């Protein structure tokens, strides 16, 4: 087991920036069946920012996150983390499309898993897991097993697990895609608040334009496969409350992203 560096010096950590340089990814297949998922993606993400990646299905959004998390390798180009505090590896939190909770563990034990695997002492682990569970408002369910939770609650537990180790970079892969609209709004608000307080650099992959606009400071639009960056929209909302979604400004931003997406799909505006 390789302990994550400096994990217990938690709070002092700095969010990191991310630089993608000409990132490409080809999935090798038999003969002509290899698939080019990404082509020459250049992206610069500032420390502490919230970026949303949006694009049609199969445009390689998830692949970008997986490469950043070390679950996949780029075939060309590279990734650079900037402003790394310790000079060692970056601490990354990852939230998958599904909760991926261990069914035999309680919510608390699931959330504590990354700390456990990093060799954090039991007492500290319990404390930090409880804090993370509190942040996603699941405190009353800390001893509950996933089978007894609703889909939204499971996703919140997964989010708590992603942030429990005080990540410098949080990667979210369509975390709320399978939830109903109302639940999704609530979780969006919760996530936005979490980011505001904790200040980790956040990259969100989503299919939902309103979600991207509501959460991010910047929405990056990708083309269909092979994914390339088509353009981006800066989100200049003054505040993000449930009311925000009902404002004209919000709707204009949504339209702006939508037009960009349409052009990415090959429709001229």
């Amino acid at each position, binding site marked *: *087991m*390789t302990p*994550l560096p400096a994990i217990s010096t938690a709070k002092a950590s700095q969010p990191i920036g991310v630089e993608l340089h000409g990132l490409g990814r080809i999935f090798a297949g038999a003969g002509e069946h290899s698939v080019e998922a990404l082509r020459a993606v250049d992206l610069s993400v500032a420390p502490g920012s919230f970026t949303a990646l949006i694009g049609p299905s199969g445009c390689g959004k998830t692949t970008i996150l997986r490469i950043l*998390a*070390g*679950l996949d390798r780029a075939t060309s180009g590279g990734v650079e983390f900037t402003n790394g505090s310790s000079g060692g590896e970056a601490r*990354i939190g*990852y939230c*998958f499309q*599904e909760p*991926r909770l*261990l*069914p*035999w563990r309680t919510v608390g034990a699931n959330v504590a*898993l*990354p700390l*456990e*695997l*990093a060799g954090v002492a039991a007492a500290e682990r319990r404390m930090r897991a409880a804090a993370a569970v509190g942040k996603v408002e699941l405190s009353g369910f800390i001893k509950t*097993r*996933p*089978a*007894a939770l609703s889909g939204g609650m499971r996703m919140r537990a997964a989010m708590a697990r992603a942030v429990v180790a005080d990540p410098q970079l949080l990667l979210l892969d369509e975390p709320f895609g399978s939830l109903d609209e109302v639940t999704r709004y609530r979780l969006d608000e919760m996530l936005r608040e979490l980011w505001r307080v904790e200040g980790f650099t956040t990259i969100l992959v989503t299919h939902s334009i309103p979600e991207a606009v509501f959460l991010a400071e910047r929405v990056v639009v990708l083309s269909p496969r092979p994914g390339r960056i088509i353009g981006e929209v800066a989100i200049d909302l003054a505040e993000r409350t449930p009311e925000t979604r009902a404002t004209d400004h919000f709707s204009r931003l949504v339209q702006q992203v939508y037009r960009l997406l349409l052009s990415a799909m090959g429709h001229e505006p």
Partner: protein
Amino acid sequence: MSSGLARLAVAIPPVAVVVAAIAIWWLAVRTFDIPQYLLPAPGAVLEAVWSDRERLAWAMLGTAIGASSGFLLAAVLGVAIGSVLGLSRFLERGFYPLTLLLQMVPLVALAPILVVWLGYGQRAVIAAAAIVALFPVIANTLGGMRSVDRDLEELFTLCRAGTLSRWWRLRLPAAVPSIVTGLRIAAGLAVIGAIVGEFVSAYAGDRAPLGMVIVSAMKEYRTDLMFGAIGLAAIVGFALFGIVNLGGWLLLRRWHTSAGDAG
């Protein structure tokens, strides 16, 4: 309350089938006038069991001890071997075919040599029970470890979990439902193994185990007693199976879907 009733209702079909089978058996013996040495009437079997109850109680106890010891041995060894094989494809490819041998080996032929190796008495019985019970535990442990959700494996990769940690925190618990299935099969087999072991290894006498009782009754054409002893051996098997089921249910009820989703 109602769940108690529902559980009773679940018990009706098997009970009905058993009752019907016994009725057909009884009718057949009566109608065709089948001599006792070929097939005893159900009543004769019960009578034989009752009149020999003390000897049979000791016999059941002896067989139960031999079978459950062999079962426990197989459970511990099986999970250990299955886990080790689950660590790497190389180990699995190298050793899994060897473990298959365990299933292929005819225990009846092997049992006498067990006595030569281990001597008369319980040791050979326990070994025979363990040998037949081992394979399903290995196979199901390995199968359970192999079928761990890839997404969860990825979660552990993300957290840079080591091999041992991954085994202990992910693969072993994830394999528990499968291991329990293996143990269920092993429970019944352990009793068969113990009986076969007793055929060649058990001490005769007032407290001889069921295997000896079955052989003696067979050779004396006491089919009533023999059927009774076989029935008691089945009860030992059911009991062991029931204990495994209960243990599995307690372990799994809160998280595994096959044990019913908690509300």
